[in-house]
């Protein structure tokens, strides 16, 4: 009986005319698209537009004045400096960690994976506080540092450390699943054909993961420039010295300089948009290469 029934179905499916892979009615389809777009518009596009509208409310002159004001310039420079140190550090670390996890078997591997995720699960305020507890003058290493005249918290090194801590999973997290999926077959082939380890890394491993790597770096960079909580704790809020752009935005807002606050905020948003555009551009430019890598 059961066999008969199942045989019954088969011819009817085969005989059916071509249908789109989704069987839903157009009403469902358009409702879903509408909901997604409305959600996107309301929670993403609208706030973004609001930032730029507010920024230009008092005119273009005020906008640019807010960006060339010395404290703002110092904040922009510090933000870029911190990102320029934190991102390469996390790039090297992320590559090394992903390589180790994906291509080798060793004890404590799961522990390492869990630890890499730690900064995602810990509140950024705590990430900042641990550095104060460690390097602050009442802290564990504080007295020793003070004797040697080394400043870490309430100075640039502390801000860099806190940023590295917070942004540290991005590159590794992008690479690990991809490298695990790819396995080590390509590398084994390269080495069996006589390539050195270094050459294998540059010519086989790195090209295989370059898109994931780029994506991880861009995400890492976006977060490094935008980090507020952890940096706020270790910064000391010294204007023109240890204020990053997000902290500067808050200060301006609290000083009733709303247009200036939104001007700096719009610059931050712009940096994020530029980051995403670079990614899209590179993806478009290298579409063939991308397809080849995905085909693996």
């Amino acid at each position, binding site marked *: 009986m059961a066999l008969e029934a199942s045989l019954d179905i088969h011819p009817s499916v085969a005989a059916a005319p071509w249908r789109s892979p989704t069987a839903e009615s157009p009403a469902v389809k358009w409702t879903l698209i509408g909901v997604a777009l409305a959600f996107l518009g309301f929670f993403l596009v609208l706030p973004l537009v609001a930032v730029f509208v507010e920024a230009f409310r008092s005119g273009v002159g005020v906008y640019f004045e807010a960006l060339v004001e010395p404290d703002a310039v110092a904040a922009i420079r510090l933000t870029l400096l911190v990102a320029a140190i934190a991102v*390469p550090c996390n790039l090297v670390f992320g590559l090394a960690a992903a390589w180790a996890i994906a291509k080798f078997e060793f004890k404590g591997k799961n522990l390492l994976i869990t630890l890499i995720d730690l900064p995602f699960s810990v509140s950024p305020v705590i990430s900042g506080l641990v550095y104060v507890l460690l*390097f*602050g003058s009442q802290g564990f290493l504080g007295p020793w540092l003070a004797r040697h005249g080394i400043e870490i918290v*309430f100075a640039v090194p502390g801000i860099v450390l806190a940023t590295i801590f917070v942004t540290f999973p991005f590159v590794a997290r992008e690479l690990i699943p991809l490298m695990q999926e790819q396995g080590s077959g390509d590398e084994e082939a390269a080495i069996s054909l006589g390539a050195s380890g270094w050459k294998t890394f*540059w010519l086989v491993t790195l090209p295989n993961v370059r898109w994931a790597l780029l994506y991880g770096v861009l995400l890492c960079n976006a977060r490094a420039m935008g980090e507020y909580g952890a940096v706020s704790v270790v910064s000391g809020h010294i204007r023109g010295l240890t204020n990053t752009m997000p902290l500067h935005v808050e200060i301006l807002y*609290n000083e*009733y300089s709303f247009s200036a606050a939104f001007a700096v905020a719009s610059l931050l948003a712009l940096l994020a948009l530029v980051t995403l555009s670079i990614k899209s551009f590179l993806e478009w430019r290298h579409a063939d290469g991308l397809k080849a890598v995905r085909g693996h």
Partner: protein
Amino acid sequence: MIILSRRSLFGAAAATLLLAGSAGAQTTLLNVSYDPTRELYRDFNAAFAKHWEAEGKEAVSVRMSHGGSGAQARAVIDGLDADIVTLALEADINAIAEKTGKIPADWRGSLANNNCPYTSTIVFLVRKGNPKAIRDWGDLVKDDVAVITPNPKTSGGARWNFLAAWAWAERHFEGDEAKAQEFVGQVYRHVPVLDTGARGSTTTFVQRGIGDVLLAWENEAFLALEELGPDQFEIVVPSISIKAEPPVALVDENAEAKGTTEVAKAYLDYLYSKEGQTIAAKHYYRPFEPELADPSDMQRFPELELATIDDFGGWKKAQPRFFADGGVFDQIYKPGQ
């Protein structure tokens, strides 16, 4: 193809590396202050730098750090390298002195007027036309009134607010402390949002439009009026308030280590000069010596009866009694009620 993409990948990384640099050095002081003094010290620092150079001394620039008074004290304790602290409360400077020894224990009195070059008080800011008819502390507990004040646990200004309400209640109930405590408790039950700092509360009231009355530093209330328009808000002066005394002090050890003791001391002294007192009055702080300030600025300060911290036995008594863990504030304020 591989070479090309590798180049673009690292090109992007290298581009970010090109941007770095640091500012040139001269004598710099770091003044660690509380929230509402931003505008005051922006003016004062410029005036002092000019004065110091006119004296024929090396150019000086003063850097500022602002935040909640308690949080700022904590940062100095944890190593923020302040030459000078200008905080909202004596208790906060005491904390630095006790925990680090960087400020001598007898700092209070090293400058005139117990180290307070300016004082302030607590007034009410209400919406234009005073629709809820709030005239005095007693009106804060009327049924439909929402009060905005920060958290006394974290904010110096909020502690002054608390004590001012207490001073009124003690007067009103003729010294009955149980009734005073009941009244202040009622006030806090009318608070929908307890921000961590004075500036946060001002933003809540002014920008977000929450609440009917803001308990504010007098200078903060005037500033909000000036910045955001007298057509939206008005100041109500209660029958009695408190003389808020935000003190200033030299952080001896930090200044010594940096070799800035002389200029830091001069900076503090200059707060008491004619120019310093004038700038304070201009920014709505009540100068210690009113006759030094501009009389037209002085006219703006309303006359009112002021209780002082000494009526509460000084901060050394008031702080543990009202604001320590398990103190009066903890007894009357339970979140979510």
